[in-house]
Protein backbone atom coordinates (compact mmCIF):
# COMPACT_ATOMS: atom_id res chain seq x y z
CA UNK A 1 0.00 0.00 0.00
CA UNK A 2 2.76 2.36 0.91
CA UNK A 3 4.36 1.59 -2.47
CA UNK A 4 1.39 3.18 -4.15
CA UNK A 5 0.81 5.96 -1.65
CA UNK A 6 4.31 7.39 -1.73
CA UNK A 7 4.59 8.30 -5.40
CA UNK A 8 1.05 9.67 -5.30
CA UNK A 9 1.95 11.93 -2.40
CA UNK A 10 5.11 12.99 -4.18
CA UNK A 11 3.17 13.86 -7.32
CA UNK A 12 0.62 15.75 -5.28
CA UNK A 13 3.33 17.73 -3.54
CA UNK A 14 5.11 18.56 -6.78
CA UNK A 15 1.92 19.77 -8.40
CA UNK A 16 1.10 21.86 -5.32
CA UNK A 17 4.47 23.54 -5.73
CA UNK A 18 3.69 24.18 -9.37
CA UNK A 19 0.26 25.49 -8.55
CA UNK A 20 1.78 27.90 -6.04
CA UNK A 21 4.37 29.09 -8.53
CA UNK A 22 1.73 29.51 -11.24
CA UNK A 23 -0.46 31.51 -8.88
CA UNK A 24 2.53 33.64 -7.91
CA UNK A 25 3.74 34.56 -11.38
CA UNK A 26 0.23 35.35 -12.57
CA UNK A 27 0.68 38.74 -10.92
CA UNK A 28 3.06 40.72 -13.07
CA UNK A 29 4.65 42.69 -10.23
CA UNK A 30 5.33 39.50 -8.29
CA UNK A 31 6.90 37.97 -11.38
CA UNK A 32 9.13 41.02 -11.86
CA UNK A 33 10.07 40.90 -8.17
CA UNK A 34 10.97 37.23 -8.42
CA UNK A 35 13.18 38.00 -11.41
CA UNK A 36 14.90 40.86 -9.52
CA UNK A 37 15.54 38.57 -6.56
CA UNK A 38 16.87 35.84 -8.80
CA UNK A 39 19.25 38.31 -10.45
CA UNK A 40 20.35 39.56 -7.02
CA UNK A 41 21.05 36.00 -5.87
CA UNK A 42 22.99 35.13 -9.04
CA UNK A 43 25.00 38.37 -8.72
CA UNK A 44 25.72 37.71 -5.03
CA UNK A 45 26.78 34.11 -5.58
CA UNK A 46 28.83 34.87 -8.70
CA UNK A 47 30.31 38.13 -7.39
CA UNK A 48 33.98 37.16 -8.00
CA UNK A 49 33.19 36.37 -11.66
CA UNK A 50 30.62 39.08 -12.33
CA UNK A 51 32.20 42.10 -10.64
CA UNK A 52 34.34 44.00 -13.20
CA UNK A 53 36.97 44.95 -10.57
CA UNK A 54 38.05 43.82 -7.14
CA UNK A 55 35.97 45.72 -4.54
CA UNK A 56 39.21 46.67 -2.75
CA UNK A 57 41.27 47.78 -5.77
CA UNK A 58 42.04 51.48 -5.37
CA UNK A 59 42.73 53.86 -8.28
CA UNK A 60 43.47 57.10 -6.52
CA UNK A 61 43.91 58.91 -9.87
CA UNK A 62 40.24 58.16 -10.67
CA UNK A 63 38.76 58.87 -7.27
CA UNK A 64 35.19 60.20 -7.11
CA UNK A 65 34.75 59.93 -10.86
CA UNK A 66 31.12 60.00 -12.06
CA UNK A 67 29.47 57.02 -13.78
CA UNK A 68 31.19 56.17 -17.08
CA UNK A 69 31.69 53.19 -19.42
CA UNK A 70 34.71 52.04 -17.43
CA UNK A 71 32.91 52.48 -14.08
CA UNK A 72 29.15 52.16 -14.56
CA UNK A 73 28.31 53.38 -11.04
CA UNK A 74 31.34 55.70 -10.75
CA UNK A 75 34.12 55.38 -8.18
CA UNK A 76 34.33 56.18 -4.48
CA UNK A 77 36.70 58.34 -2.43
CA UNK A 78 39.52 55.79 -2.83
CA UNK A 79 38.89 55.25 -6.53
CA UNK A 80 37.26 51.86 -5.90
CA UNK A 81 34.68 50.72 -8.45
CA UNK A 82 31.22 51.40 -7.00
CA UNK A 83 29.49 48.73 -9.11
CA UNK A 84 31.85 46.02 -7.88
CA UNK A 85 31.32 47.17 -4.30
CA UNK A 86 27.54 47.07 -4.77
CA UNK A 87 27.87 43.53 -6.16
CA UNK A 88 29.94 42.39 -3.17
CA UNK A 89 27.53 44.29 -0.92
CA UNK A 90 24.72 42.12 -2.33
CA UNK A 91 26.71 39.11 -1.14
CA UNK A 92 26.79 40.44 2.39
CA UNK A 93 23.20 41.70 2.53
CA UNK A 94 21.73 38.53 1.05
CA UNK A 95 23.82 36.26 3.28
CA UNK A 96 22.77 38.22 6.34
CA UNK A 97 19.14 38.11 5.20
CA UNK A 98 19.05 34.40 4.45
CA UNK A 99 20.98 33.38 7.58
CA UNK A 100 18.74 35.53 9.77
CA UNK A 101 15.71 33.90 8.17
CA UNK A 102 17.14 30.44 8.91
CA UNK A 103 18.02 31.29 12.51
CA UNK A 104 14.78 33.07 13.34
CA UNK A 105 12.60 30.49 11.58
CA UNK A 106 14.31 27.63 13.39
CA UNK A 107 14.25 29.21 16.85
CA UNK A 108 10.94 31.03 16.39
CA UNK A 109 9.09 27.98 15.11
CA UNK A 110 10.38 25.85 17.96
CA UNK A 111 9.42 28.46 20.55
CA UNK A 112 6.05 29.19 18.97
CA UNK A 113 4.99 25.59 18.47
CA UNK A 114 6.04 24.52 21.96
CA UNK A 115 4.32 27.58 23.40
CA UNK A 116 1.12 26.94 21.47
CA UNK A 117 1.03 23.19 22.04
CA UNK A 118 2.33 22.82 25.60
CA UNK A 119 -0.03 24.97 27.64
CA UNK A 120 2.14 24.92 30.77
CA UNK A 121 4.95 26.77 29.02
CA UNK A 122 2.80 29.22 27.08
CA UNK A 123 2.63 31.98 29.70
CA UNK A 124 6.36 32.09 30.40
CA UNK A 125 7.51 31.79 26.76
CA UNK A 126 5.10 34.46 25.55
CA UNK A 127 6.16 36.89 28.28
CA UNK A 128 9.76 36.40 27.21
CA UNK A 129 8.86 37.16 23.59
CA UNK A 130 6.84 40.18 24.82
CA UNK A 131 9.93 41.41 26.64
CA UNK A 132 12.13 40.95 23.58
CA UNK A 133 9.57 42.75 21.45
CA UNK A 134 9.47 45.65 23.92
CA UNK A 135 12.73 46.89 22.39
CA UNK A 136 12.60 48.68 19.05
CA UNK A 137 14.31 46.42 16.43
CA UNK A 138 17.29 48.63 15.80
CA UNK A 139 17.85 49.38 19.49
CA UNK A 140 17.99 45.71 20.48
CA UNK A 141 20.18 44.96 17.47
CA UNK A 142 22.65 47.75 18.23
CA UNK A 143 22.84 46.80 21.93
CA UNK A 144 23.46 43.16 21.02
CA UNK A 145 26.15 44.23 18.56
CA UNK A 146 27.85 46.13 21.39
CA UNK A 147 27.76 42.93 23.40
CA UNK A 148 28.80 40.54 20.64
CA UNK A 149 31.34 42.11 18.30
CA UNK A 150 31.30 43.12 14.66
CA UNK A 151 31.57 39.97 12.56
CA UNK A 152 29.01 38.61 10.12
CA UNK A 153 28.12 35.89 12.66
CA UNK A 154 27.48 38.54 15.31
CA UNK A 155 25.16 40.46 12.96
CA UNK A 156 23.26 37.24 12.25
CA UNK A 157 22.95 36.37 15.96
CA UNK A 158 21.84 39.91 16.82
CA UNK A 159 19.21 40.12 14.06
CA UNK A 160 18.18 36.49 14.64
CA UNK A 161 17.43 37.40 18.26
CA UNK A 162 15.46 40.45 17.14
CA UNK A 163 13.25 38.56 14.68
CA UNK A 164 12.82 35.23 16.51
CA UNK A 165 9.97 36.53 18.72
CA UNK A 166 8.09 37.75 15.64
CA UNK A 167 8.28 34.32 14.04
CA UNK A 168 7.38 32.71 17.37
CA UNK A 169 4.22 34.82 17.53
CA UNK A 170 3.09 33.66 14.09
CA UNK A 171 3.94 30.01 14.80
CA UNK A 172 2.13 30.10 18.14
CA UNK A 173 -0.97 31.72 16.65
CA UNK A 174 -1.19 29.11 13.90
CA UNK A 175 -0.54 26.28 16.38
CA UNK A 176 -3.35 27.48 18.67
CA UNK A 177 -5.78 27.28 15.73
CA UNK A 178 -4.51 23.90 14.50
CA UNK A 179 -4.49 22.36 17.98
CA UNK A 180 -8.28 22.55 18.14
CA UNK A 181 -8.79 20.79 14.80
CA UNK A 182 -10.00 17.22 14.63
CA UNK A 183 -7.01 15.67 12.92
CA UNK A 184 -4.79 16.65 15.82
CA UNK A 185 -7.33 15.30 18.26
CA UNK A 186 -7.45 12.08 16.20
CA UNK A 187 -3.67 11.74 16.24
CA UNK A 188 -3.62 12.28 20.00
CA UNK A 189 -6.43 9.75 20.47
CA UNK A 190 -4.43 7.21 18.46
CA UNK A 191 -1.67 7.63 21.02
CA UNK A 192 0.78 9.83 19.09
CA UNK A 193 3.35 11.44 21.37
CA UNK A 194 3.56 15.22 21.68
CA UNK A 195 6.78 15.21 19.72
CA UNK A 196 5.18 13.21 16.89
CA UNK A 197 2.10 15.46 16.77
CA UNK A 198 4.36 18.49 16.48
CA UNK A 199 6.71 17.02 13.88
CA UNK A 200 4.27 15.11 11.68
CA UNK A 201 1.00 16.97 12.05
CA UNK A 202 1.68 20.54 13.14
CA UNK A 203 4.88 21.58 11.36
CA UNK A 204 3.78 20.76 7.78
CA UNK A 205 0.66 22.86 8.32
CA UNK A 206 2.67 25.79 9.60
CA UNK A 207 4.66 25.98 6.39
CA UNK A 208 2.48 28.59 4.67
CA UNK A 209 2.36 31.24 7.40
CA UNK A 210 6.05 30.69 8.16
CA UNK A 211 7.03 31.01 4.50
CA UNK A 212 5.25 34.37 4.29
CA UNK A 213 6.72 35.56 7.59
CA UNK A 214 10.18 34.40 6.48
CA UNK A 215 10.00 36.62 3.38
CA UNK A 216 9.22 39.67 5.49
CA UNK A 217 11.96 38.82 8.01
CA UNK A 218 14.34 38.64 5.04
CA UNK A 219 13.30 42.14 3.94
CA UNK A 220 13.46 43.66 7.44
CA UNK A 221 16.82 42.12 8.24
CA UNK A 222 18.33 43.64 5.08
CA UNK A 223 17.01 47.06 6.16
CA UNK A 224 18.17 46.65 9.76
CA UNK A 225 21.59 45.36 8.71
CA UNK A 226 21.98 48.41 6.47
CA UNK A 227 21.02 50.67 9.38
CA UNK A 228 23.50 48.91 11.70
CA UNK A 229 26.30 49.28 9.16
CA UNK A 230 25.31 52.91 8.62
CA UNK A 231 25.58 53.59 12.36
CA UNK A 232 29.01 51.95 12.44
CA UNK A 233 27.79 49.03 14.53
CA UNK A 234 27.66 46.47 11.73
CA UNK A 235 30.30 44.54 9.83
CA UNK A 236 33.68 46.32 9.67
CA UNK A 237 33.99 48.89 6.84
CA UNK A 238 36.58 46.73 5.07
CA UNK A 239 33.82 44.40 3.83
CA UNK A 240 31.54 46.43 1.56
CA UNK A 241 27.92 46.43 2.69
CA UNK A 242 25.19 48.62 1.23
CA UNK A 243 24.76 50.32 4.62
CA UNK A 244 28.42 51.15 5.27
CA UNK A 245 28.86 52.32 1.66
CA UNK A 246 26.13 54.91 2.24
CA UNK A 247 27.69 55.87 5.57
CA UNK A 248 31.10 56.37 3.96
CA UNK A 249 29.59 58.37 1.08
CA UNK A 250 27.99 60.95 3.40
CA UNK A 251 31.07 63.16 3.34
CA UNK A 252 31.25 63.19 -0.44
CA UNK A 253 27.54 63.56 -1.04
CA UNK A 254 27.93 66.96 -2.62
CA UNK A 255 29.17 66.38 -6.12
CA UNK A 256 29.19 62.58 -5.81
CA UNK A 257 25.52 61.77 -5.33
CA UNK A 258 25.92 58.44 -7.18
CA UNK A 259 27.78 57.06 -4.16
CA UNK A 260 24.58 57.26 -2.14
CA UNK A 261 22.19 56.53 -4.97
CA UNK A 262 23.69 53.20 -6.09
CA UNK A 263 23.72 51.27 -2.78
CA UNK A 264 20.44 52.95 -1.80
CA UNK A 265 18.71 51.69 -4.93
CA UNK A 266 20.16 48.21 -4.34
CA UNK A 267 18.52 48.18 -0.89
CA UNK A 268 15.22 49.56 -2.15
CA UNK A 269 14.89 47.12 -5.07
CA UNK A 270 15.80 44.08 -2.99
CA UNK A 271 13.56 44.97 -0.06
CA UNK A 272 10.69 46.01 -2.34
CA UNK A 273 10.91 42.75 -4.30
CA UNK A 274 10.94 40.72 -1.09
CA UNK A 275 7.86 42.55 0.18
CA UNK A 276 6.07 42.03 -3.15
CA UNK A 277 6.88 38.31 -3.13
CA UNK A 278 5.79 38.12 0.52
CA UNK A 279 2.45 39.75 -0.32
CA UNK A 280 2.09 37.52 -3.38
CA UNK A 281 2.82 34.40 -1.34
CA UNK A 282 0.32 35.40 1.29
CA UNK A 283 -2.40 35.82 -1.33
CA UNK A 284 -1.44 32.66 -3.23
CA UNK A 285 -1.43 30.57 -0.05
CA UNK A 286 -4.66 32.05 1.30
CA UNK A 287 -7.46 29.57 0.57
CA UNK A 288 -10.06 32.27 1.10
CA UNK A 289 -8.97 34.22 -1.97
CA UNK A 290 -10.63 32.12 -4.61
CA UNK A 291 -9.95 34.52 -7.45
CA UNK A 292 -6.40 33.25 -7.59
CA UNK A 293 -7.20 29.56 -8.01
Amino acid at each position, binding site marked *: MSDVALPAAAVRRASLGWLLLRRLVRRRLVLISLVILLVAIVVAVGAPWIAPYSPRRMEIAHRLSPPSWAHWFGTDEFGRDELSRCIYGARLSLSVGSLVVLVSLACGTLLGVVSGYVRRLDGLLMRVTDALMAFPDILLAIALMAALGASLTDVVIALGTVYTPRVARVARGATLVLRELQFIEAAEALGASGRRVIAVHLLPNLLSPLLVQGTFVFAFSILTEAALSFLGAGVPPTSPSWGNMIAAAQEYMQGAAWLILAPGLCIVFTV*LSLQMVGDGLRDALDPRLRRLT
Partner: protein
Amino acid sequence: MPADVETIGNAVTHYLLRRLAGMIVVMFLVATIVFVISHVIPGDPAAVMLGPAATAADIAALRARLGLDAPLPVQYVEFLHSVLRLRLGESIFLGRSVTEALAERAPLTLQLTVLAAGLAVLIGVPVGVLSAVKRGSLLDQAVTAISMAAASLPSFWIGLTLIEYLAVHWHLLPVAGYGPPGAGFVVHLTYLVMPAIALGIPSSALIVRFTRTSMLDVLQEDYVRTARAKGLAPRTVIFKHAFRNARTSVLTVVGLTVAGLLGGAIVTETVFALPGVGNLVVSAVLRRDYPVIQGALLVISGVYVLINLGIDLLYAVLDPRVRY
Protein backbone atom coordinates in the same frame (compact mmCIF):
# COMPACT_ATOMS: atom_id res chain seq x y z
CA MET B 1 -29.03 49.40 33.58
CA PRO B 2 -26.87 50.68 36.47
CA ALA B 3 -26.03 47.07 37.27
CA ASP B 4 -24.78 46.69 33.71
CA VAL B 5 -22.64 49.79 33.96
CA GLU B 6 -21.24 48.47 37.22
CA THR B 7 -20.35 45.12 35.66
CA ILE B 8 -18.61 46.86 32.76
CA GLY B 9 -16.78 49.10 35.22
CA ASN B 10 -15.62 46.05 37.16
CA ALA B 11 -14.56 44.32 33.98
CA VAL B 12 -12.53 47.38 32.96
CA THR B 13 -10.87 47.54 36.38
CA HIS B 14 -10.05 43.86 36.23
CA TYR B 15 -8.69 44.21 32.74
CA LEU B 16 -6.59 47.21 33.77
CA LEU B 17 -5.16 45.37 36.75
CA ARG B 18 -4.39 42.31 34.63
CA ARG B 19 -2.67 44.43 32.00
CA LEU B 20 -0.67 46.30 34.64
CA ALA B 21 0.43 43.01 36.22
CA GLY B 22 1.43 41.71 32.80
CA MET B 23 3.35 44.92 32.18
CA ILE B 24 5.27 44.57 35.43
CA VAL B 25 6.26 41.01 34.50
CA VAL B 26 7.39 42.16 31.05
CA MET B 27 9.39 45.06 32.51
CA PHE B 28 11.06 42.67 34.96
CA LEU B 29 12.04 40.43 32.03
CA VAL B 30 13.19 43.51 30.07
CA ALA B 31 15.44 44.48 32.98
CA THR B 32 16.80 40.93 33.07
CA ILE B 33 17.56 41.01 29.32
CA VAL B 34 19.28 44.38 29.74
CA PHE B 35 21.36 42.98 32.60
CA VAL B 36 22.37 39.96 30.54
CA ILE B 37 23.28 42.08 27.50
CA SER B 38 25.34 44.53 29.51
CA HIS B 39 27.22 41.73 31.27
CA VAL B 40 28.01 39.94 28.05
CA ILE B 41 29.55 43.10 26.55
CA PRO B 42 33.23 42.28 26.19
CA GLY B 43 35.78 44.46 27.94
CA ASP B 44 35.85 45.72 31.45
CA PRO B 45 33.87 48.89 32.26
CA ALA B 46 36.48 49.79 34.88
CA ALA B 47 39.29 49.53 32.33
CA VAL B 48 37.30 51.66 29.85
CA MET B 49 36.65 54.30 32.53
CA LEU B 50 40.26 54.61 33.58
CA GLY B 51 41.73 54.66 30.08
CA PRO B 52 44.79 52.88 28.67
CA ALA B 53 47.24 54.32 31.23
CA ALA B 54 45.57 52.62 34.22
CA THR B 55 47.44 49.99 36.22
CA ALA B 56 45.95 46.61 37.12
CA ALA B 57 45.69 47.73 40.75
CA ASP B 58 43.72 50.88 39.81
CA ILE B 59 41.34 48.81 37.73
CA ALA B 60 40.87 46.28 40.53
CA ALA B 61 40.18 49.09 43.01
CA LEU B 62 37.58 50.68 40.73
CA ARG B 63 35.97 47.28 40.06
CA ALA B 64 35.58 46.82 43.79
CA ARG B 65 34.12 50.31 44.20
CA LEU B 66 31.60 49.74 41.39
CA GLY B 67 30.64 46.33 42.76
CA LEU B 68 31.83 44.60 39.59
CA ASP B 69 33.85 42.04 41.57
CA ALA B 70 30.73 40.71 43.31
CA PRO B 71 29.22 37.39 42.11
CA LEU B 72 26.76 37.81 39.21
CA PRO B 73 23.59 36.96 41.20
CA VAL B 74 24.52 39.62 43.75
CA GLN B 75 25.13 42.13 40.96
CA TYR B 76 21.78 41.18 39.43
CA VAL B 77 19.86 41.82 42.65
CA GLU B 78 21.73 45.10 43.14
CA PHE B 79 20.88 46.07 39.57
CA LEU B 80 17.15 45.35 39.99
CA HIS B 81 17.19 47.25 43.27
CA SER B 82 18.70 50.35 41.71
CA VAL B 83 16.35 50.17 38.70
CA LEU B 84 13.40 50.12 41.11
CA ARG B 85 14.75 53.29 42.71
CA LEU B 86 15.17 54.74 39.20
CA ARG B 87 18.93 55.05 39.71
CA LEU B 88 20.54 54.27 36.40
CA GLY B 89 24.14 54.97 37.39
CA GLU B 90 26.77 57.41 36.14
CA SER B 91 27.85 57.75 32.54
CA ILE B 92 31.49 56.86 31.94
CA PHE B 93 32.15 59.66 29.47
CA LEU B 94 29.59 62.38 30.16
CA GLY B 95 30.51 63.00 33.79
CA ARG B 96 26.87 62.99 34.90
CA SER B 97 24.13 60.58 35.86
CA VAL B 98 22.43 58.58 33.11
CA THR B 99 19.03 59.83 34.28
CA GLU B 100 20.16 63.44 33.82
CA ALA B 101 21.63 62.74 30.39
CA LEU B 102 18.44 61.00 29.26
CA ALA B 103 16.16 63.68 30.72
CA GLU B 104 18.13 66.42 28.99
CA ARG B 105 17.85 64.75 25.59
CA ALA B 106 14.35 63.30 25.86
CA PRO B 107 12.40 66.47 24.87
CA LEU B 108 14.10 66.64 21.47
CA THR B 109 13.42 62.97 20.72
CA LEU B 110 9.85 63.44 21.91
CA GLN B 111 9.33 66.44 19.59
CA LEU B 112 10.85 64.55 16.67
CA THR B 113 8.74 61.45 17.29
CA VAL B 114 5.53 63.43 17.75
CA LEU B 115 6.17 65.45 14.57
CA ALA B 116 6.98 62.32 12.57
CA ALA B 117 3.97 60.46 13.97
CA GLY B 118 1.71 63.42 13.20
CA LEU B 119 3.04 63.57 9.66
CA ALA B 120 2.67 59.81 9.18
CA VAL B 121 -0.94 59.84 10.40
CA LEU B 122 -1.90 63.01 8.51
CA ILE B 123 -0.60 61.55 5.25
CA GLY B 124 -1.30 57.88 5.92
CA VAL B 125 -4.93 57.86 7.05
CA PRO B 126 -6.52 60.19 4.43
CA VAL B 127 -4.52 58.69 1.57
CA GLY B 128 -5.39 55.18 2.73
CA VAL B 129 -9.11 56.03 2.94
CA LEU B 130 -9.05 57.72 -0.47
CA SER B 131 -7.24 54.80 -2.02
CA ALA B 132 -9.81 52.35 -0.62
CA VAL B 133 -12.75 54.45 -1.76
CA LYS B 134 -11.31 54.75 -5.28
CA ARG B 135 -10.39 51.08 -5.32
CA GLY B 136 -8.88 49.86 -8.60
CA SER B 137 -8.48 53.38 -10.02
CA LEU B 138 -5.22 54.75 -11.34
CA LEU B 139 -4.90 56.75 -8.11
CA ASP B 140 -5.29 53.59 -6.03
CA GLN B 141 -2.65 51.77 -8.05
CA ALA B 142 -0.25 54.70 -7.80
CA VAL B 143 -0.81 54.98 -4.05
CA THR B 144 -0.23 51.24 -3.59
CA ALA B 145 2.99 51.30 -5.63
CA ILE B 146 4.36 54.43 -3.95
CA SER B 147 3.52 53.24 -0.45
CA MET B 148 5.15 49.90 -1.07
CA ALA B 149 8.31 51.59 -2.36
CA ALA B 150 8.30 54.06 0.55
CA ALA B 151 8.07 51.20 3.06
CA SER B 152 11.23 49.74 1.51
CA LEU B 153 13.30 52.92 1.85
CA PRO B 154 15.87 53.04 4.63
CA SER B 155 15.12 56.19 6.62
CA PHE B 156 18.79 57.23 6.67
CA TRP B 157 18.80 57.17 2.89
CA ILE B 158 15.71 59.39 2.73
CA GLY B 159 17.41 61.69 5.23
CA LEU B 160 20.62 62.01 3.23
CA THR B 161 18.67 62.61 0.00
CA LEU B 162 16.60 65.33 1.70
CA ILE B 163 19.79 67.00 2.98
CA GLU B 164 21.28 66.88 -0.50
CA TYR B 165 18.29 68.54 -2.19
CA LEU B 166 16.31 70.59 0.34
CA ALA B 167 19.31 71.89 2.26
CA VAL B 168 22.41 71.82 0.07
CA HIS B 169 20.97 72.49 -3.40
CA TRP B 170 17.91 74.59 -2.73
CA HIS B 171 18.85 76.08 0.69
CA LEU B 172 15.28 75.69 1.91
CA LEU B 173 16.10 74.18 5.30
CA PRO B 174 19.12 73.96 7.60
CA VAL B 175 21.42 70.99 6.88
CA ALA B 176 21.68 69.36 10.30
CA GLY B 177 21.86 69.96 14.04
CA TYR B 178 19.29 71.64 16.28
CA GLY B 179 20.19 75.30 15.85
CA PRO B 180 21.90 77.66 18.31
CA PRO B 181 21.02 76.94 21.97
CA GLY B 182 19.13 80.16 22.66
CA ALA B 183 17.08 80.08 19.44
CA GLY B 184 13.30 80.24 19.58
CA PHE B 185 10.90 77.37 19.10
CA VAL B 186 10.24 78.18 15.43
CA VAL B 187 13.96 78.13 14.59
CA HIS B 188 14.36 74.77 16.31
CA LEU B 189 11.29 73.54 14.46
CA THR B 190 12.88 74.29 11.07
CA TYR B 191 15.72 71.97 12.08
CA LEU B 192 13.21 69.21 12.77
CA VAL B 193 11.30 69.36 9.48
CA MET B 194 13.63 67.16 7.42
CA PRO B 195 14.26 64.62 10.21
CA ALA B 196 10.51 64.33 10.78
CA ILE B 197 9.93 63.71 7.05
CA ALA B 198 12.71 61.11 6.87
CA LEU B 199 11.39 59.35 9.96
CA GLY B 200 7.69 59.70 9.11
CA ILE B 201 7.64 58.60 5.45
CA PRO B 202 8.22 54.84 5.92
CA SER B 203 5.65 54.86 8.73
CA SER B 204 3.10 56.76 6.67
CA ALA B 205 3.50 54.13 3.95
CA LEU B 206 2.62 51.41 6.45
CA ILE B 207 -0.38 53.38 7.69
CA VAL B 208 -1.61 53.92 4.10
CA ARG B 209 -1.50 50.21 3.35
CA PHE B 210 -3.16 49.22 6.57
CA THR B 211 -5.88 51.89 6.42
CA ARG B 212 -6.66 50.90 2.85
CA THR B 213 -7.03 47.22 3.74
CA SER B 214 -9.24 47.81 6.77
CA MET B 215 -11.38 50.35 4.89
CA LEU B 216 -11.84 47.85 2.05
CA ASP B 217 -13.00 45.22 4.56
CA VAL B 218 -15.51 47.59 6.11
CA LEU B 219 -16.77 48.99 2.79
CA GLN B 220 -17.89 45.49 1.81
CA GLU B 221 -20.15 45.18 4.85
CA ASP B 222 -23.92 45.06 4.45
CA TYR B 223 -24.59 48.10 6.62
CA VAL B 224 -22.44 50.24 4.33
CA ARG B 225 -24.50 49.06 1.37
CA THR B 226 -27.67 49.84 3.32
CA ALA B 227 -26.40 53.30 4.15
CA ARG B 228 -25.64 53.89 0.49
CA ALA B 229 -28.98 52.44 -0.60
CA LYS B 230 -30.96 54.75 1.63
CA GLY B 231 -29.37 57.65 -0.23
CA LEU B 232 -26.89 59.03 2.31
CA ALA B 233 -24.22 61.33 0.93
CA PRO B 234 -21.05 59.39 0.01
CA ARG B 235 -19.07 61.45 2.49
CA THR B 236 -21.41 60.53 5.34
CA VAL B 237 -21.21 56.86 4.41
CA ILE B 238 -17.43 56.91 4.24
CA PHE B 239 -16.73 58.85 7.39
CA LYS B 240 -19.68 58.15 9.67
CA HIS B 241 -20.30 54.53 8.74
CA ALA B 242 -17.17 53.03 7.28
CA PHE B 243 -14.22 54.87 8.82
CA ARG B 244 -15.63 54.73 12.33
CA ASN B 245 -15.47 50.98 12.16
CA ALA B 246 -12.09 50.84 10.50
CA ARG B 247 -10.40 53.11 12.99
CA THR B 248 -9.77 50.45 15.65
CA SER B 249 -7.52 48.51 13.31
CA VAL B 250 -6.02 51.77 12.02
CA LEU B 251 -5.23 52.60 15.63
CA THR B 252 -3.36 49.31 15.98
CA VAL B 253 -1.02 50.13 13.15
CA VAL B 254 -0.63 53.73 14.32
CA GLY B 255 0.41 52.39 17.72
CA LEU B 256 2.87 49.99 16.17
CA THR B 257 4.36 52.72 14.01
CA VAL B 258 4.71 55.21 16.85
CA ALA B 259 6.55 52.56 18.81
CA GLY B 260 8.66 51.84 15.72
CA LEU B 261 9.47 55.54 15.41
CA LEU B 262 11.34 55.34 18.72
CA GLY B 263 13.75 52.94 17.05
CA GLY B 264 13.82 54.92 13.81
CA ALA B 265 14.71 58.06 15.77
CA ILE B 266 18.02 56.44 16.72
CA VAL B 267 19.06 56.36 13.06
CA THR B 268 17.47 59.67 12.06
CA GLU B 269 19.10 61.59 14.90
CA THR B 270 22.46 60.26 13.79
CA VAL B 271 21.90 61.34 10.16
CA PHE B 272 20.87 64.86 11.17
CA ALA B 273 23.29 65.19 14.11
CA LEU B 274 20.40 65.91 16.48
CA PRO B 275 21.39 65.74 20.15
CA GLY B 276 18.54 63.43 21.22
CA VAL B 277 18.28 60.12 23.04
CA GLY B 278 18.99 58.15 19.84
CA ASN B 279 22.24 59.96 19.27
CA LEU B 280 23.14 59.34 22.92
CA VAL B 281 22.55 55.59 22.47
CA VAL B 282 24.64 55.34 19.31
CA SER B 283 27.60 57.18 20.80
CA ALA B 284 27.28 55.13 23.98
CA VAL B 285 27.43 51.90 21.96
CA LEU B 286 30.40 53.08 19.92
CA ARG B 287 32.27 54.17 23.10
CA ARG B 288 31.05 51.21 25.21
CA ASP B 289 29.48 53.55 27.76
CA TYR B 290 27.79 50.67 29.62
CA PRO B 291 25.60 52.56 32.09
CA VAL B 292 24.15 54.74 29.31
CA ILE B 293 23.40 51.72 27.11
CA GLN B 294 21.68 50.03 30.05
CA GLY B 295 19.68 53.08 31.04
CA ALA B 296 18.60 53.94 27.51
CA LEU B 297 17.49 50.35 26.82
CA LEU B 298 15.39 50.34 29.98
CA VAL B 299 13.81 53.74 29.44
CA ILE B 300 13.04 53.31 25.74
CA SER B 301 11.54 49.85 26.20
CA GLY B 302 9.54 51.16 29.16
CA VAL B 303 8.08 53.92 26.98
CA TYR B 304 7.39 51.35 24.26
CA VAL B 305 5.47 49.12 26.68
CA LEU B 306 3.51 52.13 28.00
CA ILE B 307 2.53 53.21 24.48
CA ASN B 308 1.21 49.73 23.77
CA LEU B 309 -0.79 49.78 26.99
CA GLY B 310 -2.17 53.21 26.08
CA ILE B 311 -3.27 51.96 22.67
CA ASP B 312 -5.08 49.00 24.21
CA LEU B 313 -6.93 51.32 26.54
CA LEU B 314 -7.84 53.66 23.68
CA TYR B 315 -9.56 50.75 21.94
CA ALA B 316 -12.15 50.69 24.65
CA VAL B 317 -12.84 54.39 24.20
CA LEU B 318 -13.10 54.20 20.41
CA ASP B 319 -14.84 50.85 20.07
CA PRO B 320 -17.55 50.01 22.58
CA ARG B 321 -17.65 46.46 21.21
CA VAL B 322 -14.28 45.69 22.77
CA ARG B 323 -14.91 43.45 25.77
CA TYR B 324 -12.46 42.54 28.46
